[in-house]
């Protein structure tokens, strides 16, 4: 199932599917190692729910929800 990163819950794992940002933001996201195929885990959110902290292999990134909107992720189907 592919969902925007914003909708992911804390402690949920996923894999980057697409990054739909061009220009400065897109470049920054890629420079910091978020590219399609990369596996990650949402490890926390700031006290006001935004920004979000993401753990990649070996390091942690933080980005605003408005920036996470450009990233779609492949996640395991939730068993409800």
């Amino acid at each position: 199932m592919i969902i925007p990163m914003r909708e992911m819950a804390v402690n949920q794992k996923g894999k980057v599917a697409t990054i739909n940002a061009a220009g400065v933001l897109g470049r920054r996201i890629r420079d910091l190692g978020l590219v399609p195929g990369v596996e990650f885990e949402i490890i926390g959110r700031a006290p006001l729910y935004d920004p979000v902290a993401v753990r990649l292999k070996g390091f942690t990134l933080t980005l605003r929800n408005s920036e996470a909107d450009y990233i779609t992720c492949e996640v395991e189907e939730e068993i409800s």
Partner: protein
Amino acid sequence: MKNKQIFVGITGQPNCGKSSMFNALTGSVGRVGNYPGITVECMEGHYKFKNSDDKLRIVDLPGTYSLTSYSADESVATKLILEQQPDVLVCMLDATTLERSLYLAIQLMELGVPIVIGLNMMDEVERKGITIDVEKLKAVLGVPVVKCIARKGEGKQQLADAVLAQYKKYNADSDVNRVSRWSGINIGYGSDLDPVIKDIAQILKDDNFDESIYSAHWAAIKYAEDDKEFVASIKENHPAADAKISKIIGDLTSHLEKTLHTYPEAVIADYRYGYISSILKNNEVIHYPSDMRFDFTDKVDLILTNRVLGPIIMCVVLYLLFYITINIGAIPQGWCEAGFGYLKDIAENNMTEGLFKSLVTNGIIDGVGSVLSFTPLIFVMFIQLCFLEDLGYMSRVAYMLDRLFRICGLHGASVMPFIISGGIPGGCAVPGVMATRTLRCPRERLATILVAPFTICGAKLTPLVILVAAFFDPKNQHENKQVWILFLITIGCWIAALSVARVLRWTIIKGEPTPFVMELPPYRMPTFYGVMLHSGERAWQYAKKAGTVILAISIIIWAMMTFPQLDPSEYADHSSEKEKLESELVIAETAFAPIAEQHKSVSDKISGLEKEIESHKMGKKLIEQTKAEAQLALLNTKLTIINKTYEPKYENIALIKHKISNIDNHISEERLRHSYAGQIGIKLESVSQYAGFPWQVNIALVGGFTAKEVVVSVLNQAYGMGAEFDEESEDNKRAIVNRLAVEPAFKSMPAKLSIILFVMLYAPCFVTIVVIGRETKWRWALFSLVGSTTLAFIISVIVFQVGKLF
């Protein structure tokens, strides 16, 4: 080739330990390199080999995640590499984030510049249970790789040796030009991009592209990456080729968008990461443990960024930062001030009375002294900021507060400058503006610099306290009320600063927010040496940069308060009256002398006897005590008789002295009125009347530009209460409070609010203005000066005029 200084640049991604390695290599001789047009600090130092005469000149380049630039500041590293042309680059990698760290190294290898890789944080890699086969990495990359633990200085010698070897290898044949000696790697970018890159390179070559700095192939990749800063420089020299290339790129972009929903630059990034992971995987360079342990940083973050505990701890840290800067920093600041005070005393005692003396003491020493005294304060602040930054805590602060500050178009890290400037009343805008250096986003940084001075610095607190006391509690009966009003004023300043920031970001500093995406680096204990080196350097820059401008401005301000001088004939009446009083004083004092002597000797005897009686009492010597008491009674009677003549004479002398000081005060008031500053104040009355300010206040506000606490002493002088005002003296303060409380101009509530609001918001002091100019551009300093004064005036006028209607 022997004995040549080899020019080495150290590059790497932020937090990779680049500066630690620089410090380890260069020892204690770091200094900031001077590169034109660059605002980012680049430290420079030397390394000497033990067993040869070769020497390395090393520059610590600003950390960058990639060579592609998206703002002027971010491109500094790339520009230095291309323009300063280091002989060898050291690329430091954080081995714990090997894949991403290699992203920068790969780009350097594409460019082809000789590099040596420093594989740092090997101790952390071991702790995490990751294994890296360095020999294999060296083989697959084809460049020297050296294992390091930069914090401990491990690997620095091997690294320097590798640099020397690399230099010798690339410079063996010095006849061939620089770039053709290089051997860049060639990464395939897929069937869509590769032919296009080849075409572009050919077009450039056909247009006689100069390949002495970088190859046409590399330039073509930059075109495909849409690196605007970089492309602009080629466009200048090859307009025809650029037009052709732009068309090719345009076609490519629309093709990729249609077929793959992506952009050329994204494709390039994907292929680069793909290249890295394939060489790592295919050659089994790196092994991660099956379970990546929950590490120290994660545990600490559970507390430090916890939803409840996080903000509480942050408040404590911010308060400590503020407290230590303002209170501990004040101690060495006091020494500096005392030093300048001593200089001033020397000048005052040894120079002949006159204009030149006044210039030296009141103009130069006071002006320059007030600025240089800030240096220790700034040093103390930067020690803490560097510590928190190197520790990794600053990014957590930005992370936690970003949501709040973003509402106003600022960045989470804007909070530090706010707090230090006076978000907690009593700060100082000078270190506050300097603290914005930790903000990496240019627009947010500029907005923060422009609004942080609205908060209440220690100097601004002085006039505000006096005004609040005079207007709301002249009898000093309700201290709580005063504190509450000051609290409201603080909140008001925050609201003003944040709203102005919002408006600025909507208008003159508009533009998309700079991407926030950043790393939350692992917590690492900063090295004492690194922190001291960087904070010392920043404090020194402040002293050097601000000091030079301030001398000129100090002299101008002094001249404005001093010239034109009042002609003695204009206060001849006062002078003759003063002379008369002075001769009266001499007569009175002569007549007073004998009786004063008698009074003194009797008083002395009395106090001697009182002591004697006391000791007799202790020793229980009843007879001696009775004798002394009888003597005391006798003396007391004598004193009463003396007092009958003594007291009226004493009071008379006090009265004459008072009259003389009144005349002096009056003359100093006239002098001030007569000076340019005074004339400006009086002329401004025609404008300032709309806000309800009399000319005395105008002069004080003009004077307040030198330093906000001056507002009070100039008011004192303008209201004819003397040129000397001692801030520490309660009597002085009471006097001006009482005077302002009965001032008819401030009878009404709108008038009171109007002046308080103006003092809250108007222009920062000139030291802050100079620092703003140095940290940004002079036009922003001017904007801050004019803009905040205009804003303050408009608000005061509205409050005064609307208030009058009720």
